[in-house]
């Protein structure tokens, strides 16, 4: 073998391959931008205040059709005083989704997940007692569901919980305005399996709980769900990429297996990267269409985490293997310091995720950020992950710096070298630079795309008639880009077989012999070219 495909590919073939991949990328981008809708949809739902005189906690209060709720208009007006309303009588009912276009809409399973955020409107009256800046709120939350075809008043319980949250509020400047209060994350559903959901909230006064609440005028629930169209586009991308990557991976590994030597560390890393990407690509979402799988959010996070840790490890190993110094590294063990950074970072993110989304599997209302200790634990894990990421990037940039230093040193020495040796080093440099360029390009595009998306809210308009959904385009574009990146790596960094038939004809055995006993003065790059150089040197 003479290095990787990328060195031996003619320029024309390289250009054809790269332009094919770039077209794939463009298609992904446009698919997201022109076909897919925005990734998620929001509905702001205003609470219907219901009067509960039975205090029967197992009863669900629903808004539509009429009859499920005895409405209260105002909680601190004459009406409330007349009816002697207490905390036990008030139920805030949210029936999701809200109807539109004369149709009682229902959630589709394509919508995947649902996030609920609570916003409490508290009126500020100058003459009244000022509310504390940090108000502890205790919420009795009950989530029910109903499906099409069920009787309209038959709500089944999905989850119930008593949650405490802390609301930060600052008084407004003018009398009669609303306090500026923070939003309260209320629930996260990993599976949107049923058609209709009903949320009943109570704010019970037990001991000192909720005593600090000021004159609440309204409750808003903001529900965010993934758009069905986005899921469809996303899933079709996955369905296309999954077999592609698996196919290329098999092709790659077969070529490696065909070699007479053991696969090198880089080749194993590439394979592992391919496997990680394939797990990310695996279109498991199809199953959610028929089964209730609340763990999908967690699973998605885990799959992404595995992929990112593989990618980070790969860059590290790749840079390390191209160091061209005289130290010998024994496989992955040689990178334990750097890789442990990736490990620690990913592990702490995993623990954090398990604490939040793991527990949400049992109680969708759970939030680790709701209490002080939880917040501290969560923050410490996030900080550990952040530090690990920082150290990792220091390591990586140091290694890359060293590679570049070695490259310039070797460059100067190149003309004086024997031609085979020169070819070898040129190959190493070329491979390294190629990957560096591609990686930097991908990373820069991701970062720039992300920043552009954050800076420019809303839709992008290039033309009156072209309505580009930028956020979706960014997601599909980035997703496609990393797929294309790894496809390209698998193709271009697979062992080239351009010259090896002649090699294997006569010099197979000697090659192998020398391969496994590299001279300490030689670079650790394990390719048959190394062997050739050694042979020429000993000759």
């Amino acid at each position, binding site marked *: 073998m003479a290095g990787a495909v990328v060195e031996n590919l003619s320029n024309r073939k390289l250009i054809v391959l790269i332009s094919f991949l770039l077209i794939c990328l463009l298609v992904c981008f446009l698919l997201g931008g022109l076909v897919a809708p925005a990734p998620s949809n929001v509905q*702001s739902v*205003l609470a219907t205040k219901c009067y509960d005189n039975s205090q029967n906690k197992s009863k669900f209060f629903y808004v*539509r059709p009429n009859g499920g709720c005895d409405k209260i208009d105002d909680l601190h007006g004459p009406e409330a005083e007349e009816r002697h309303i207490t905390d036990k009588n008030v139920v805030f009912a949210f029936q999701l989704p809200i*109807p539109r276009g004369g149709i009682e809409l229902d959630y589709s399973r394509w919508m995947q997940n649902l996030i609920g955020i609570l916003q409490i409107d508290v009126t500020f009256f100058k003459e009244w007692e000022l509310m504390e800046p940090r108000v502890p709120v205790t919420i009795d939350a009950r989530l029910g569901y109903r499906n099409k075809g069920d009787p309209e008043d038959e709500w089944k319980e999905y989850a119930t919980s008593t949650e405490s949250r802390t609301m930060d509020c600052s008084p407004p400047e003018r009398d009669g305005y609303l306090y500026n209060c923070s939003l309260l994350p209320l629930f996260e559903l990993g599976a949107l399996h049923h058609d209709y959901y009903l949320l009943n909230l109570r704010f019970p006064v037990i001991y000192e709980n909720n005593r600090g609440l000021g004159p609440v005028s309204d409750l808003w629930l903001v529900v*965010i*769900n993934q758009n069905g169209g986005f899921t469809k586009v996303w899933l079709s991308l996955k369905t296309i990429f999954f077999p592609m990557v698996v196919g290329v991976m098999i092709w790659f590994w077969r070529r490696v297996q065909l070699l007479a030597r053991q696969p090198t560390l880089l080749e194993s890393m590439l394979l592992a990267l391919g496997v990680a990407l394939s797990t990310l690509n695996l279109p498991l979402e199809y199953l959610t269409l028929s089964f209730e799988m609340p763990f999908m959010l967690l699973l*998605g*996070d885990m799959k992404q985490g595995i992929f990112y840790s593989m990618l980070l490890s790969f860059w590290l190993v790749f840079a390390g293997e191209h160091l061209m110094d005289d130290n010998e590294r024994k496989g992955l063990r040689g990178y334990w310091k750097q890789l442990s950074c990736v490990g620690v970072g990913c592990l702490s993110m995993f623990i954090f995720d398990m604490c939040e*989304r793991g527990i949400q599997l049992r109680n969708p209302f759970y939030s680790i950020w709701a209490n002080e200790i939880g917040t501290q634990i969560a923050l410490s894990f996030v900080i550990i992950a952040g530090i690990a990421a920082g150290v990792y990037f220091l390591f990586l940039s140091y290694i890359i710096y060293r590679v570049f230093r070695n490259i310039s040193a070797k460059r100067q020495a190149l003309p004086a070298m024997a031609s085979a040796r020169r070819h070898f080093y040129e190959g190493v440099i070329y491979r390294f630079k190629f990957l560096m360029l591609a990686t930097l390009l991908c990373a820069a595009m991701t970062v720039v795309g*992300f920043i552009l998306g954050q800076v420019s809210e809303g839709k992008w308009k290039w033309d009156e008639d072209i309505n580009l959904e930028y956020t979706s385009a960014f997601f599909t574009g980035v997703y496609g880009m990393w797929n294309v990146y790894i496809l390209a790596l698998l193709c271009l960094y697979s062992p080239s077989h351009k010259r090896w038939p002649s090699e294997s004809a006569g010099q197979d055995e000697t090659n192998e012999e020398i391969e496994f006993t590299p001279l300490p003065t030689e670079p650790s790059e394990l390719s048959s070219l190394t062997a050739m150089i050694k042979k020429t040197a000993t000759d």
Partner: protein
Amino acid sequence: MSSTRTTVVFIVVLMMVLPYLGTAKGRGRGSKWWGIARAGEPNNLVSNSIKENSITNSYLDPDVHATLRRKQRRLVRDHPGVVVAVAKGAKQAISECKHQFKNRRWNCPTKDFHRGRNLFGKIVDRACRETAFIYALMSAAVTHSVSRACSEGAIESCTCDYSQRGPSGADWEWGGCSDNIQFGVKFSREFVDAGEKGRDIRYMMNLHNNEAGRVHVSTEMRQECKCHGMSGSCTVRTCWMRLPFFRVVGDNLKDRFDGASRVLISNTGRTPGNGRKKYNYQLKPYNPEHKAPSKKDLVYYENSPNFCEKNLKLGIAGTQGRVCNETSIGVDGCDLMCCGRGYKTEVKEVVERCACTFHWCCEVKCKVCRTKKTIHTCL
């Protein structure tokens, strides 16, 4: 973007469908619907039906029916539940108007026996600032209230306005629905502007002020965002618009009232060539050195009466008997409020609710304070 397009299309269609009625017959004819605010009051026949006017109930009370124009009736019929929202909005507008003007000579008086467009008295016959404010506020209130009712699910027929169309056409499953405010604005434009047509400057003024009210609601929307990406990070961020608190809209409109633009009566308005488009006009300022009124500005073309004396023709009660503030040099000060007629001063013992605390839920505990207050009333 698509919604503006549909609105434009709608307006064009509207102009073609509706018979082009003559001008200048009844200046405030478009405001007849204000009477809906009186619906639901205890001494009113309308009351029972409007409170019970549920979403499924398309039956319309004859009294409400009478206050609405044909097109408005159709809208109400097409959007069950909307009457309640409009009525609530109108009531809210009245109380907001009273709040904003409580310290001025004109304090937004309404009388129980006033009906329809006369809800605020005959002042609306005059194209003055006060009228401009009332129109804008009423329109804003309808926008606000209808959007709110959509959020509560009280109006099932709020349009979805799919921002992006799926392969199978407009689709909630594919791309979700637009914000509720869009329906509020669209509905308000259809409903509130239904009676305003013609080439008259007064119609243009009303249309402009109605639109200004709506613009104030939609520009006061505040964006809020939530991150929900991988592990809750900000890789995915979703934002939504929060409906403004109505008091904010009222305050802003009051500011615009103070800086309202006077426009030329001779405004023919229509830009040449587009004579039939309802909203296609540009009002010219009275003072040529001033800028043309912006979308948010209130416009008027007649001077306000001074509101000092009782004026039966305009339905002004005058400021006699109004309480004023001796120390203020503003409009609530005794000098201005009483129009120089002088005032009498009394010391009264006032029983007030004070030092109120709110106990969740829903008890307001107040102390009863007896204070001696010096009260000045205009002669």
